[in-house]
């Protein structure tokens, strides 16, 4: 049986290459100083979708929400074997937190009628791991997080192995399902030469700055990446952007971690109690 897989991907700043200029004075990320990359675990999600297609057939569609620059990661998905790509972009998406983001993405995924939705566990910029689970709730479908392996996929039933951190669970459910995939799941494949050669000229309308001639030309060649805005998604504006985002940033602190000596804790129950008490008092935990 062939499956319609939708993979959600995000373009993120490469937080592994943090330099002195990585943070703006106001504490926000200086995206210009960090190269933009394909969120690593989203590559694992894409690989899992491509493996499903390799063995069962079907289609893989990559969806990214972001500025037109995010077209880069969509092209990258096409190079690696995605059949189709969609950029969700709209100025009104700005300032969306994870709840608003998952609402907007749910509108896009509904249009694609997915059997299996795959996301990376979390993005390396926000590290929340919230969008996948929230999206499943918005779609009203089953979610399985921390997926390491698909054990079996047959008809409308899927069995997966999920990593719980201190062991594994094997979970079985009916489709449709949303999976969040961890990096232990697989090694993502590189671009395929022919897909690279074919799709190197694929562009979103936004990248073509509305040039109707070019848009038509690429459309005829099958190289126009789909671009959807909130009107097309028929999204309810109260759930999008700032309005749809209950998260309020109270304060941003620039934290410089520096070792300030060490403290020996007695390996006794009292020693542990004292340490926990101290950590609660200075708000490290709790």
């Amino acid at each position, binding site marked *: 049986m062939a499956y319609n897989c939708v993979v959600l991907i995000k373009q993120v700043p490469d937080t592994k290459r943090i330099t002195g200029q990585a943070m703006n004075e106001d504490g926000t990320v200086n995206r210009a100083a960090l190269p933009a990359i394909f969120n690593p675990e989203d590559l694992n999600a894409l690989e899992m979708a491509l493996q499903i297609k390799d063995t069962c057939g079907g289609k893989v569609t990559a969806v990214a929400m972001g500025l037109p620059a995010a077209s880069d990661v969509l092209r990258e998905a096409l190079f690696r074997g995605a059949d189709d790509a969609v950029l969700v972009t709209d100025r009104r998406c700005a300032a969306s937190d994870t709840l608003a983001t998952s609402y907007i993405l749910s509108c896009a995924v509904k249009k694609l009628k997915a059997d299996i939705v795959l996301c990376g566990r979390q993005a390396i910029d926000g590290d929340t791991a919230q969008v996948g689970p929230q999206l499943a709730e918005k779609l009203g479908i089953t979610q399985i997080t921390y997926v390491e392996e698909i054990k079996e996929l047959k008809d409308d039933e899927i069995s997966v192995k999920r990593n719980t951190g201190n062991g594994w669970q094997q979970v079985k459910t009916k489709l449709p399902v949303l999976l969040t995939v961890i990096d232990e799941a697989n090694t993502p494949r*590189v671009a395929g030469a022919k897909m690279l050669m074919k799709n*190197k000229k694929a562009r979103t309308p936004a990248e073509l700055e509305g040039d109707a001639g070019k848009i038509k030309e690429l459309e005829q060649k099958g190289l126009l990446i789909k671009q959807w805005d909130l009107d097309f998604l028929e999204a309810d504006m109260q759930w999008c952007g700032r309005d749809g985002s209950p998260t309020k940033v109270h304060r941003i602190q620039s934290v410089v971690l520096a070792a300030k000596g060490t403290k020996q804790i007695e390996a006794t129950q009292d020693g542990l109690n004292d340490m926990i008490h101290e950590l609660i008092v200075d708000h490290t935990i709790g």
Partner: protein
Amino acid sequence: MANFYTDNEDIQFILNNMNVAELADLMEGDYSDAKKFDFAPADAQEAVENYKLVLKTLGELCGDFVAPRSEAMDHEGNTLNDDGKVTRPKGMYEILDMLSKAEVMGMTLPHRFGGLNFPCLILSAANEMVSRGDASLMNIFGLQGIAETINAFASEEIKQQYLPDLATGKTTGAMVLTEPDAGSDLQACKVKAFQDDDGNWYLHGVKRFITNGCGEVHLVMARSEADRAGGLGLSLFVCDMGPTVHIRRIEDKMGIHASPTCEIFYDNTPCLLIGERQRGLVTYVMALMNGARIGIAAQSLGIGEAAYRIARNYASSREQFGGPIEKLPAVRDLVIDMKIEVEESRALLYETSRVVDFEIGYEKIVESKTLSSEKTKEIKQKLRMIKRYASMLTPMSKYVASEMSNSVAYDSIQVLGGSGFMRDYACERLYRDARITSIYEGTSQLQVVAAVRGVNNGTATKYISELASFEYDANLKDLLDILAANTKTMDDCVEYVKDKGIDYMDLYGRKLVDIAVKTIIGYLFCQHASGKIDMEVAVDDKGKKTSMKARKAKIARRYITRNNPNIKAWADTIKAGCTSSFDSYNEIAGAVPDLS
């Protein structure tokens, strides 16, 4: 995150300064494939863009995926199971799967068979990067020459049967030539090919030292004319791995452990004839071998590049006598000689690949019969010369690169000292892997025999005169004068040797070839130093940069001025007329030692 293309400025600089668009025109003709295949290029600019994009992707695969598996594959090796099947090291299965997904297993095959239709030059760069990742892998990846041979000489039916699967990587091939009594002397092949009453062909006999003999597609040379000895009794066949193909053993080798080297018994194996009878060795295998020699040159280059990098890294970080050892004159000299040797091989390999692309391209044009008779005549004339250049440069390139990989791997261990002798560093593996490169696909001695013909019949002189007519930068004038003098020295030696007979020519073949090679590469370095497209390259890790052109001018100066006295000395030796190797062999070598 390693990328063996983007981290190698020399590859990029040379490719940027070669007329790759011209090669794309030769490969793509009128670019009409763009209408049939959505990935085929529409013009030369797009083709060149494609080459670089694919090299970049492959560079990432080699750096991030292949190289980290190399050590384990070397330890694990291949296993011959009781059922006669070969199990490859785990990493090799993973890599072959990844290469197949990367769609690079049919790089030079035409689009219609699922290939990328890339020129040989780009395959050489790819082979180099693959070998830098793992030398053994190149013996499977680089066997794309088998598909090329099928494409060049087999019937359409055979092409349809085998090429699509080879292009996707679903099958891999083996080039089955060597036998217990037929190594360098392939004319002595004994494996029989015979026909049944219906005209179907079968193979019978034993082949030995077969690289990737467990591959699915075998290209086998066998004696089809039972009554005819020598090369003209041999034809080329293709067969599938199957129940009548028995792997009898796999060799326990010094290096390239992840590449299975098999002894194969063909027990009346059904097969198909490639092309025409009796042309097996004289035409098809010669073409196959030439391609394979360029492949081994690229493999050698990849090993050399890897070995150099380990040495440089160690020399800059290992502290002795109060500082990094690369401050010591002897180590400094060793390290930059290694670097120049690597770039020397690359210069010659890429140039050779370019010439071979012209050979292939012109042949295609002549065969297509699309040009006017006058234009065809002109191309045919050029092709005659190009063929002579290719048949001289190919063995030269294989000889230079394989000797380089041995010496650079040796020196890499030397720079690391005791640590290099231990299994902790990859240079000991590279040293073992390098050793075969100057042996298989024709030993260095045989490459010299092939190349020296070109030096003696005027091909080298003609080719060098073409190199000399390039537009060089003015600052290289004194170097070009030295190279002109070196060419004269070469011509004088050729003149001297001519009267001395063929044995004498072969006796001093290596020195004659060395003179030609050093002169040719001297010109190539000067071409690089006169390149139209410069690039900035790092000089240290603090952001200091220099121009690659200026760097190449420095290399050219060191290379040419240091070789000049050597060339004179080699010429003196050639012209000294010493024939003691013939006259006094037994006296000097003494009695044959008893090893029992």
